[in-house]
């Protein structure tokens, strides 16, 4: 009788123990589920938060329509001190986008090497390179009616501040320049951008021939900015990323050009030095004061031959 009572007592204790264990396991499982749910919920919350932030963000200001460049911007671009060109030289971070084609058809006008620029105002990569083109050509001649605009507000590197060659004039005793901005930065209903400059038939033929294979990889055919310098040097794409100019106004960029250590100046003036060294090859090192300067000499190693 007593032995039976002890056995029953043991059984009851074992059952109680099993029940406690089961309860503990259920509680642990509940805690685990809560942890998983919490962490996964946090991940979803971050993604949803990013989307909501984007949706509630003020729409980016529409790209500024092209207009005349301000006097201070033109002055800064056309009068970069020689000491700044020499101090910057040619940073190694520049992209090697210029290629040499000695057997291509020479491009000249009025007995001078001709430079053909082909881009568009919406294009963020053109926005970056245009600053350097304007700075470089200022060393060989004089600009008039330079424009001021921004790249598209809905493309990569939105609303990058830049100049425009639409309607601009250029005179030089060393080189001739023609610039085309084929569209504005304003979207048109067809999903593209409002057309602007119409290239001449002969210039379009140059672009069709040299902005295509074998001069560029097949995937980059027709990409802009494109430049033909004297028929011998081609530029496909920007020498530096438009990211360098992100968030900066025209005036801020212009003001930066006085500071040789600024990343903006390193990119714009460094690229301008490479373009200048390239043009010097076409002008047979004229003018000497420009072509023999330290900055241009340093950049000449970036010019393919």
């Amino acid at each position, binding site marked *: 009788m007593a032995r039976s009572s002890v056995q029953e007592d043991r059984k009851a204790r074992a059952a109680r123990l099993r029940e406690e264990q089961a309860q503990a396991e259920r509680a642990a*499982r509940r805690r685990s589920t809560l942890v998983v749910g919490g962490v996964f919920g946090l991940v979803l919350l971050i*993604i949803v938060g990013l*989307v909501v932030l*984007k949706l509630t963000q003020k729409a980016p200001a529409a790209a500024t329509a092209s207009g005349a460049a301000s006097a201070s911007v033109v002055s800064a671009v056309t009068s970069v001190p020689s000491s700044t060109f020499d101090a910057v030289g040619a940073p190694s971070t520049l992209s090697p986008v210029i290629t040499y084609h000695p057997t291509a058809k020479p491009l000249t006008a009025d007995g001078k090497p001709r430079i053909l620029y082909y881009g568009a105002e919406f294009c963020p990569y053109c926005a970056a390179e245009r600053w350097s083109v304007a700075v470089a050509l200022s060393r060989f001649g004089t600009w008039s009616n330079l424009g001021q605009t921004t790249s598209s507000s809905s493309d990569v590197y939105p609303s990058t501040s830049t100049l425009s060659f639409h309607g601009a004039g250029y005179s030089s005793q060393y080189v001739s320049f023609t610039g085309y901005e084929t569209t504005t930065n304003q979207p048109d209903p067809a999903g593209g951008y409002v057309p602007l400059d119409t290239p001449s038939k002969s210039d379009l033929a140059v672009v069709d021939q040299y902005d295509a294979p074998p001069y560029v990889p097949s*995937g980059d055919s027709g990409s802009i900015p494109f430049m033909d310098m004297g028929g011998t040097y081609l530029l496909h794409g920007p020498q530096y*990323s438009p990211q360098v100019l992100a968030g900066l106004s025209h005036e801020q960029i212009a003001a930066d050009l006085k500071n040789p250590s600024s990343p903006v100046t390193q990119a714009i003036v460094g690229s301008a030095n490479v373009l200048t060294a390239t043009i010097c090859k076409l002008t047979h090192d004229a003018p000497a004061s420009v072509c023999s300067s330290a900055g241009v000499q340093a950049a000449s190693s970036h010019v393919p031959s």
Partner: protein
Amino acid sequence: MSGQTTERAARSGRWSVPTWTVVVSLLLCVAGLADATYLTFEHYTQSASLLCSDKGTINCLAVTTSSYSDFHGAPVALLGLLYFVGMTALCLPVAWRLPALRWVRMIGATTGVLFVFYLVWAELFRINAICLWCSGVHVITILLFGVVLFATVMAQPSAAESPGADD
């Protein structure tokens, strides 16, 4: 599982997770692998045959050819492909049974989600365009993270005779 069974199972060196997590994680990895393979192919063929809009907000071309399509010089599409190759190996049934891989798998899934945060931010705030194929990879990566997290937290030592997964 009783205390004795747990000890015996732990000594056996194998872990069991809910069967559905093994199946679902592997399916997600295979889907991610297919999507990432397609994006890598498009990357190396200049996105010439990308089946997606190239205008407006849904614009795969703007995303896959943007400066954010490279990460420290490595194509993001290729990184995605390598990621899913690794995760597929880690989510094979045999890999789920090995306790040593539990945290490797969890770290892999977490890294994937952190990278998704970066890519979604880039699409929304830098490129201003959405790539549907990339979004597919992002959704898969997040779901995979959820499944791997659940399985890792719920994993328990299994009896030696266990096949490695139970319900």
